[in-house]
């Protein structure tokens, strides 16, 4: 039994103990669900791909939360302004020896330490992807649930609208939305300093930099607008298949309220595909927001956005900025790879075929 599973199992037991203390008898009622969850954890931890992904996710999340504190250089100070004699030498490649005090892993064209910038960049990339995915999935889930559950005219209208959105290439629309939203957002932020400071602290950026914050906001609002339709479709599909299985009719016949039906019966059934979708989407959202920043729609310098850093490096590519592309590119790669690996392993966990073969092996170990 591997240590990660043991840890997960211990967590589940602790949680069960807590719930038992709050409402005695809970353990007996939910025993089979707990065993199921333990089995899922076992199947997940049995896959090397899943564990590697989990490790990457933990590392990148750690960097995202603590990055701005760990980073040893401020991002909004341009060394070149203080030391104009460096001009000809920038961007400076990495040097691991004695470099007159220049950073080990190279600088960008302004003389800033690239590695420090990249460490800060994790925060922006991750907060962006999390907000995009969480918000759009919530919107999509609500629309999908309402549409699937109530059916009829509501379903027709909502689905026509969703299909219309789905008929479009997402990136293109996001570009267009981002551009048009940007000006309005800029005005909005200028007029609302509290909103500005909230956004600034989320992304660990300077609250006085309203235009760049507006650009950031425009990128992820645009992506949210484009991201929700697939969720609506998937959730509606799941609701319809649950409906077909007759759970809902039975529940209604028993007199359960709509809310209870939605939360107790429908939602747990759609959890697994949703979970997989969300995990993969964290990766895709990271890359999409980086792509929009690369195209210039996101924040501008000095903000340490990873996509922006790479696009700036493009001017000096390749001999004079390859290290910048490597460092920022690897950061993006690690973030998305982590989520993709976890998503892939999760998909296997919920796929009845692969799950069964591992379950048979595990039978002896988990049924305690």
């Amino acid at each position, binding site marked *: 039994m591997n240590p990660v599973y043991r840890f997960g199992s211990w967590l589940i037991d602790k949680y069960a103990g807590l719930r038992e203390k709050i409402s005695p008898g809970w353990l007996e009622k939910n025993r089979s669900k707990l065993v199921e969850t333990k089995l899922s954890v076992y199947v997940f931890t049995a896959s090397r791909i899943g564990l590697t992904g989990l490790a990457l996710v933990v590392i990148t999340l750690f960097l995202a939360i603590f990055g701005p504190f760990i980073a040893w250089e401020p991002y909004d100070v341009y060394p070149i302004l203080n030391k104009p004699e460096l001009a000809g030498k920038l961007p400076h490649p990495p040097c691991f020896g004695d470099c007159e005090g220049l950073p080990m892993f190279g600088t960008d064209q302004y003389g800033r330490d690239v590695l420090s910038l990249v460490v800060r960049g994790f925060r922006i990339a991750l907060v962006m992807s999390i907000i995009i995915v969480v918000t759009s999935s919530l919107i999509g889930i609500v629309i999908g649930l309402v549409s699937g559950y109530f059916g009829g005219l509501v379903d027709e209208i909502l689905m026509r609208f969703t299909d219309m959105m789905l*008929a479009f290439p997402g990136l293109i629309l996001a*570009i*267009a939305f981002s551009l048009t939203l940007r000006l309005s957002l800029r005005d909005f932020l200028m007029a609302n300093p509290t909103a500005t400071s909230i956004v600034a602290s989320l992304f660990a950026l300077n609250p006085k930099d309203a235009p760049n914050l507006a650009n950031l906001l425009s990128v992820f609002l645009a992506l949210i607008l484009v991201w929700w339709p697939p969720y609506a479709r998937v959730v509606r599909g799941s609701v319809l298949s649950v409906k077909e299985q007759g759970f809902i009719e039975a529940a209604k016949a028993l007199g359960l309220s709509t809310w209870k039906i939605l939360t107790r019966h429908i939602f747990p059934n759609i959890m697994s595909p949703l979970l997989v979708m969300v995990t993969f989407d964290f990766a895709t959202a990271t890359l999409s927001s980086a*792509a929009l920043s690369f*195209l210039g729609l996101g924040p501008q310098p000095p903000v340490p956005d990873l996509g922006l850093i790479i696009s700036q490096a493009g001017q000096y590519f390749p*001999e004079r900025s390859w290290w910048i*592309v490597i460092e920022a590119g690897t950061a993006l790669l690690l973030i998305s790879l982590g989520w993709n690996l976890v998503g*892939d392993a999760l998909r296997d966990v919920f796929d009845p075929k692969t799950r069964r073969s591992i379950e048979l092996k595990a039978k002896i170990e988990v049924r305690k």
Partner: protein
Amino acid sequence: MGLGSYLLRRLLTFLPSVIGALLITYLIAYVIPTDPVRAWVGEKLMDPSTLDKLKKEYKFDAPWYEQFAFLVEKLLSGTLIDPVRGTPVVQQVAQRFPITVELAIFGMLFTVAIGIPLGIVAAAKKDSVIDFFVRIFALFGSSIPAFVLYYFLILAFYVYVRASLLAGVPFYSLSCAARLDSIRDTVPVLGYVVWAVGQVPIFGAPMCGEFSVVSDTVVRMWLPGLALGLLSGGFIARIVRNSLLDALTSESILFAKARGLTNQRIWRHALKNAFAPIVTILGLDFAGLLTGAIIAETVFNIPGMGLYMYQGITRLNFPIIIAGTFLFSIIYIVMNLIVDLIYALIDPRVRY
């Protein structure tokens, strides 16, 4: 009944999609910006009289239906003017669009060449090292940012090993262009098709016998094509693998075996069944290539629609963005239509 009626029904949904595209473009152009004039004009300062002329011209102060009508007319007639060049956007689009198509074709070629064989091998040798490799390849392909991969390939194949070009796109001569135009004007229907296909340089040049254009194009386009292929190849390989495995373990294959069909015949059954969903995915991939062209053309410096959009973005040239968004949307809708039709050709169940 059958294919014809399915085609008709599918075309009926085409019209509302186009209207939808126009609506969304309208939203982007007029509704969302709080100050559309500023958006269209850019951040430049303008004297009040010019501003007024623009306001009247683009109907910024008019009621919404007038604005919408104006936009529709401009888009469909292709008379939207690029303020920077002063010429209709359509001119640039007509020139650049075939180049983007060329890029997408190269990308598709590599994707198929990499993805399908890998997928078939992975299915044939399930759970082997190759199978595992395909899985990892797919995961990396969808985790690496496209532009990072592009920069690296350029580093490898242009800087260190001069195996490709990075400037311009080979085009056929003017006399060839004139010949194609005359074909379109003289031969009905088929002539138009020939002309349309010939707009893409790599197809048009051989029609005039200008084969040097073909080789130049290959040298120019193989690297971006390979890049696109590496990004999607793994994903396609996985789809092919799963689709094939599903087909191979199906009951109809068991029955085929029970009937004593040869292995070759059985694989034909399996492949045919597996390929319907694969064709769909490939079609969507092609559409995705067209939109991913924006980044690819920017990095590889290919003067197609994508680069045009990028220039519109950086210079905040609204008409370009509006026209570009509309055009890409229409392409996407048309691609979906074509994919559905091909699927109906393969799978008779869909025609109802």
